[in-house]
């Protein structure tokens, strides 16, 4: 009746190949993670094409939805980076929408009885995906920082207006804080999605095993069932919030890079 593989809370994170592809010794199989990223990207593309296909002065329903996302991110970029943040808007917008959709699509219920590799999957619950996104952000920060400020970018690690004897210590702290940025960006998103899905699956597992007893104990299954509903609601909040936090932090780091020489 229930998929055997869906027993534990960890099986949902297994990466399974759907189409086996081997290029020499390199495994480039289409996995369920890749499949869900493709589905997400396709959904985003279709949504924004549909929204802007007949762009009008007075927006229709779908166009005004797209405009909400657009203006939200645009305000965010303008307020954090300032006027020269315009050129980063496409990047931040892509990042925000991509992470948001990845997080939200992971919350879709799976069709019962499907093969294990076709169940809903959250690509952002894998640290390799989030770390790749975080490294991309930090690479842009470093490259743009040196392009814009030259060697003055290193002033980021040398705060001004402090006694000289404090400087080596502060410089060390600044360097460590800068190096931990990609790590913290990646781990925050991954751990939030991962922990949320584990808790969700744990509650669901309680319900299944309590119903499986078949006696009057079944009635206690109501409590974890309500818990699972509450956690699902919380997960929607977390999914949106973490996408927002990733975008905000990206903007703040970019603004550091843009204004490194000013302070």
């Amino acid at each position, binding site marked *: 009746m229930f998929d055997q593989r869906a027993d534990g809370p960890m099986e949902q994170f297994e990466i399974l190949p759907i189409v086996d592809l081997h290029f020499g010794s390199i495994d480039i199989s289409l996995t369920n993670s890749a499949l869900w990223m493709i589905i997400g990207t396709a959904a985003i593309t279709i949504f924004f094409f549909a929204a802007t296909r007949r762009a009008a002065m007075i927006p229709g329903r779908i166009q005004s939805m797209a405009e909400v996302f657009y203006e939200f991110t645009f305000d*965010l970029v303008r*307020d*954090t980076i300032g006027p020269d943040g315009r050129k980063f808007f496409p990047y931040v917008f892509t990042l925000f929408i991509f992470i948001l959709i990845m997080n939200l699509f992971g919350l879709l219920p799976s069709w019962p009885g499907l093969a294990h590799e076709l169940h809903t999957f959250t690509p952002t619950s894998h640290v390799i995906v989030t770390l790749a996104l975080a490294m991309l952000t930090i690479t842009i920060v470093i490259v743009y920082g040196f392009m814009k400020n030259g060697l003055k970018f290193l002033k980021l690690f040398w705060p001004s207006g402090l006694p000289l004897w404090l400087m080596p210590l502060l410089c060390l702290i600044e360097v460590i804080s800068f190096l931990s940025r990609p790590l*913290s960006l990646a*781990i*925050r998103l991954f*751990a*939030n999605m991962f*922990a949320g899905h584990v808790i969700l699956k744990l509650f669901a597992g309680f319900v299944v095993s309590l119903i499986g007893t078949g006696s009057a104990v079944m009635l206690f299954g109501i409590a974890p069932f309500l818990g699972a509903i509450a956690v699902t609601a919380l997960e929607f909040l977390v999914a949106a*919030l973490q996408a*927002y*936090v990733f975008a*905000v*932090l990206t903007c*703040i780091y970019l603004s550091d890079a843009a204004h490194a020489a000013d302070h």
Partner: protein
Amino acid sequence: MEAEAAKLIGAGLAAIPLAGAGVGLGLIFGNFLSGAFRNPSAAAQNQPTMLLAFALTEFTGLLGFAIAMIILYTF
């Protein structure tokens, strides 16, 4: 003690940072709310800062989670 048992205990101990993260999150939201009630007109423009502080504080708790995962699955 068996290595397996020690691993599980260590992973459990790695959940302790949650206490600190909980206190920190309570302080952030509590202080934001008390500030927001005193001066509601300034609340909206400080919300991003609050969420940023929330994200940074949450990270300390999540590091504990990462350590638990490392203990459980890489040793």
